[in-house]
């Protein structure tokens, strides 16, 4: 079975509107009406989509079509090509009404595209070009495959819809439970925990298990689906935070003094004394890193697969008690009392970026699952949404009466204030809530094998697919020094010999001169283009503002 991969980051989350746009699954009996509709003017359709929906003709006409697969150079053998394009005769004599692979709408496939073709490449030789073409064709084919497998995501997300004039914010959980189907209603549960103070809770990566720790030492973990209690202990110490590690079998608890790790029986496995006075915990599942923020102002990364501290970074901003992770690039966001949010990677001693968000201290930070938005709330009672894609600018801000102490994004991009919306099509291969113990063990091994090194955490995770230009240049320079000449340098222009007396020395020189002049002109033009900026810079301070300037339009 195939699962659809997550779309690449560039696509903004569509929220609940996705539902409206989702296409109805096509049935074979729709075929006639569809083609008819394409011809009649009565049903205005999206032209592009219409073209895509048209069933592909049998092979002989298909060659001229734009289909990527057919345009590719014909190879001697296609090992795993699923379906033959030729309409096959079956026993009954009926022909396949849909010969060839199922058509895929362009928009669906575009979501999975990775190569930005709008970027112009420097001129490439034919050999390079053929390579590029192959890569592009491959990418397109893969995106089409991914789009096609999106069909398997049959579940549709739910949404809240108030009646006319009804404020959806006023609909409470009990109402929802009444309204939804039985299966969904069965997932609703209440825990009455009054004794042990404010609680922190955390769901396991699969979403099946729930751990919570009360400020007065109450630690418990349970399978919330079956309501089976895995363990319940009192650690006789204040619990600051609690977090599942890569699986539900391990549990990190930030206690008053040190960081402790328990298993799902409640047995203490480790007491990590190097992480003391921890206030917040975050686990980075793909790197197997447990990030801890402490009262002492240190951000410590602990590799839980080998039990080593990878990095201990001093944030130099006093007590740290606001922390969240960016699930997209595994960068840790810390909120500080001076209204800034700093972004950290274990590979760098300094923060990757620092954003001034609030006039007062930052109280809570949350990042959505695509890594596009960051929500912050501060002591100035403001709630702001920031764009994390390069510019770090606030998109919207609003004042809350009391401010927000906790923020969380749900899987479908709703900022949680008590309510979220979960992804209906969860990735069963990635985190399967119904997995058996055997499956869990196998997954664990696989995940460990695929562990990402900690130093790869950076703001743009796709930077890894870029060439290290600096060292490339450096090596080139060294090579030129070693050889004494530049092997890749453009050869000086050598005029071609011509006949009928046009190859005289004078004309050769003239031709040479012409080319040289052209190159020189280009160079000058380039430098001129850069100059005005500099000139403006130079001029501006000199020009004295006059009183009449205000009337200049």
């Amino acid at each position, binding site marked *: 079975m195939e699962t659809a991969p997550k779309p690449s980051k560039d696509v903004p989350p569509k929220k609940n509107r996705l539902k*409206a746009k989702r296409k109805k699954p096509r049935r074979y009996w729709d075929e006639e009406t569809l083609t008819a509709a394409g011809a009649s003017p009565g049903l205005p359709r999206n032209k592009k989509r219409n073209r895509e929906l048209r069933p592909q003709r049998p092979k002989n006409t298909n060659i001229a079509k734009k289909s990527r697969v057919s345009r590719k150079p014909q190879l001697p053998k296609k090992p795993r090509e699923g379906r033959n394009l030729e309409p096959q005769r079956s026993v009954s004599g009926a022909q396949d009404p849909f010969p060839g692979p199922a058509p895929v709408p362009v928009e669906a496939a575009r979501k999975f595209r990775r190569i930005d073709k709008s970027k112009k490449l420097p001129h490439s030789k034919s050999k390079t070009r053929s*390579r590029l073409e192959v890569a592009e064709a491959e990418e397109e084919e893969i995106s089409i495959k991914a789009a096609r497998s999106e069909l398997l995501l049959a579940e549709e997300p739910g949404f809240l*819809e108030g009646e*006319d*004039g009804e404020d959806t914010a006023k609909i409470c959980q009990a109402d929802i439970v009444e309204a939804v189907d039985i299966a969904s209603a069965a997932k609703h549960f209440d825990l009455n925990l009054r004794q042990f103070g404010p609680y922190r809770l955390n769901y396991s990566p699969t979403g099946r298990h729930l751990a919570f720790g009360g400020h007065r030492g109450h630690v418990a973990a349970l399978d919330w689906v079956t309501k089976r209690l895995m363990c319940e202990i009192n650690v006789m110490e204040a619990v600051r935070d609690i977090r599942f590690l890569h699986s539900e079998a391990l549990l990190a608890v930030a206690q008053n003094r040190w960081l402790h790790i328990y298993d799902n029986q409640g047995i203490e496995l480790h007491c990590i004394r190097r992480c003391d006075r921890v206030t917040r915990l975050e686990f980075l599942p793909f790197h197997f890193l447990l990030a801890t923020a402490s009262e002492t102002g240190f951000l410590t990364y602990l590799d839980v697969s080998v039990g080593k501290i990878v990095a201990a970074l001093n944030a130099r901003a006093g007590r740290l008690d606001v922390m969240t992770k960016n699930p997209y690039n595994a960068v840790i966001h810390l909120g500080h009392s001076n*209204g800034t949010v700093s972004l950290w990677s274990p590979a760098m001693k300094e923060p990757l970026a620092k954003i001034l968000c609030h006039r*007062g201290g930052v109280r809570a930070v949350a990042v959505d699952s695509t890594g596009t938005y960051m929500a912050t709330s501060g002591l100035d009672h403001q709630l702001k949404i920031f764009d994390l894609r390069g510019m770090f600018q606030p998109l919207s801000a609003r004042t809350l009466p009391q401010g927000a102490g906790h923020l969380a994004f749900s899987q479908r991009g709703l900022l949680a204030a008590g309510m979220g919306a979960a992804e209906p099509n969860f990735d069963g291969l990635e985190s399967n809530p119904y997995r058996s113990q055997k499956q869990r063990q196998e997954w664990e091994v696989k995940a460990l094998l695929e562990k990402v090194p900690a130093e790869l955490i950076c703001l743009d995770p796709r930077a890894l697919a870029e060439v290290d230009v600096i060292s490339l240049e450096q090596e080139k320079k060294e090579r030129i020094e070693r050889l004494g000449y530049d092997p890749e340098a453009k050869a000086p222009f050598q005029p071609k010999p011509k006949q009928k007396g046009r190859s005289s020395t004078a004309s050769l020189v003239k031709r040479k001169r012409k080319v040289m002049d052209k190159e020189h002109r280009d160079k000058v033009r380039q430098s001129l283009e850069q100059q005005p900026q500099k000139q403006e810079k130079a001029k501006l301070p000199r020009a004295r503002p006059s009183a009449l300037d205000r009337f200049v339009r």
Partner: protein
Amino acid sequence: MSEVGAAESLLALSQQEEVEDLPKDYALSPSEDEVDIDGERNHQKLLEAISSLDGKNRWKLAERSEASLKVSEFSVTSEGSGEKLVLSDLLGPVKTSSSLAVVKKQLNRVKSKKTVELPLNKEEVERIHREVAFNKTSQALSKWDPIVLKNRQAEQLVFPLKKEQSAFAPIEHVLSGWKARTPLEQEVFNLLHKNKQPVTDPLLTPVEKASLKAMSLEEAKMRRAELQRARALQSYYEARARREKKIKSKKYHKVLKKGKARKALKDFEKLRKVNPTAALEELEKIEKARMMERMSLKHQNSGKWAKSKAIMAKYDLEARQAMQEQLARNKELTQKLQVASNSEEEEEGVEEEGDLVPDAVNEIQMDADGPNPWMLRNHSRGTKEAKGQDPEQLPEPVAHEASESEEEEDRPGAEEETLLNEFEERRSLRRKSGLNQDAEPVSRQEPKDSSSQEVLSELRALAQKLNKEKNQSGKQNMSSTRTVPVVQREGPLKAEEEPLLLQRPERAHTVQELEELAKEGCFQNEEVPRPSREGQQTERNPNTQAGVPKEKKRKEQMIDLQNLLTTKSPSVKSLAIPTTVEELEDEEERDQKQMIKEAFAGDDVIRDFLKEKREAVEASKPKDVDLTLPGWGEWGGMGLKPSAKKRRRFLIKTPEGPPRKDKNLPNVIINEKRNVHAAAHQVRVLPYPFTHHQQFERTIQTPIGSTWNTQRAFQKLTMPKVVTKPGHIIKPIKAEDVGYRSSSRSDLSVVQRNPKQLSLRHKKQLKKNSVD
């Protein structure tokens, strides 16, 4: 080697000759002094016998058995030569020597022949051989080029090359041996058999087969003849039509057309009497033609011809007539046909008949009739939108966002709507939101504004300071140019801060717009129309003047920090305000603001941050190198500094790096240091065919892991380049494998006969032999 050998043998030969010559002389000498003949000869013989004993130089001497008396210069003896002289030998030359033609000929031939050139140097010969062989071989090999290229570019190569025919039988064969076993299957087959449906051979049912067989020979012949006749007739008609079509006379065509029309009318009349339903259909056709005519401008006096005639009409009677004719024709064509049979139609016809009103009116009536699907659709959509608007028009500032999203979800038949439609709706939505914003109660806006004004006025001083700092970045001009409109708009209170306020960039104000932005980023071809939005913005923000590209603007302008923190983005007003805020009293709110203000009076977050940023920028700047040596060439010592001129002379300025990423983002410090650990994992050498790193980067954009791909795609991406079957011999490629005809000359075997290789081998063998 061989040369040396030859020389030796030559030497030996010449020696022999010399030796042979000697005894001849010797033999001649006794003839001169014949005194001691016998004694001498005996002595000589003895000597020879002795000398021959050692076996070294043994040679046979011409023996002389007769007396030497006969020996003279003028006679010929055959003695010593071992051959006997025959008489014919003596006679021959006498005959032939008379003409020397043969000799002459031979002489001529010898003369005409030039001297044989010196044979080429051995190396040169070999080089020529090599060249020829190379050419031949490369020619033979060049036919493999496409195959080599193909194999290099192939995604996967499977060895051994000879593929076995797949043993899979087609499914028909498999199924032919299949028998119905289960009761259901049997039932189905029974049914099929009963109805004589084909079970295995899918082409024809027995009935069809029978019908095929039923046709007799005569019938078939008749049918053939019929078909032939039909074909012939068709061809005649076609030829005629072609001929008529070629006729260029306009008059002819006019007459023809009229005749046709008349005939059609007559037919219609006839049809009406005979077959009213068919007549109705006909009528519809005529009606359609009328509609077409009305839609077109064919006879409306608007064509080129008509215009030219209109000019002439004043003077030319004919032209006038022609124009009138045309108009009449138009009238005639657009006139509705009266049909007595259908009462309903008649009524409508009566309504419409007499009118010679303008077309627009007609169209509206048509609309009411509703034959025009487009008009109908538009109309209904309009009503729909009107309906959709109704709930939105309710004064409900709380849940605008929700209602917006609702509205979008509600869109009827969303999957069927065109892009255009979507855009239209969005536009209307936006317009609505704009309206709402305007229509929002003023009372709520006011306190907010006032509070923000307070905050702003408090920070005025700081803002001015900031403004001074940022003057370098070239904003001042802009700000000063745009003061006037703002003053008019916002009053004198904020006059000082305006420059700052105006620096607000073109940002996405709502989530929705952000989405659009993102879309723009992703799909460049998709253009999002946003006229109403822009209108708002221009109203709000005079910076955006028409004609200035937004992107550029965004880059150029420095975003002001103060703005970011104090003033809210304007979308907030239009969007939902949390319910609880709504409940708050104005006074309470004001109190709260006051409290917050007081709480943060002490710490100036912004200044601290700016200071930090300045430090970070300074730290990241490349340092200039100062190479001045104090005291060199001038006085030195305590308290003496090298002169400014000198310092300037020896200061090496480092080139300015690229601009910082956070140059225009006042609220952000982005670390520009290189992540060395991550760089270690990056590619640092460009692989072969790529000349620029961007090219290579494009080929590694797609991740190949199964986490990011479907199973199929993953398998395809990680497919091995070469697949071999274990236990199979992989033979070198042959011409037959790739479909070439193998011929002995042009095959690869030419390589084996390469003379160079041959000679080399030969030489090696020789050497080996010589060593042995």
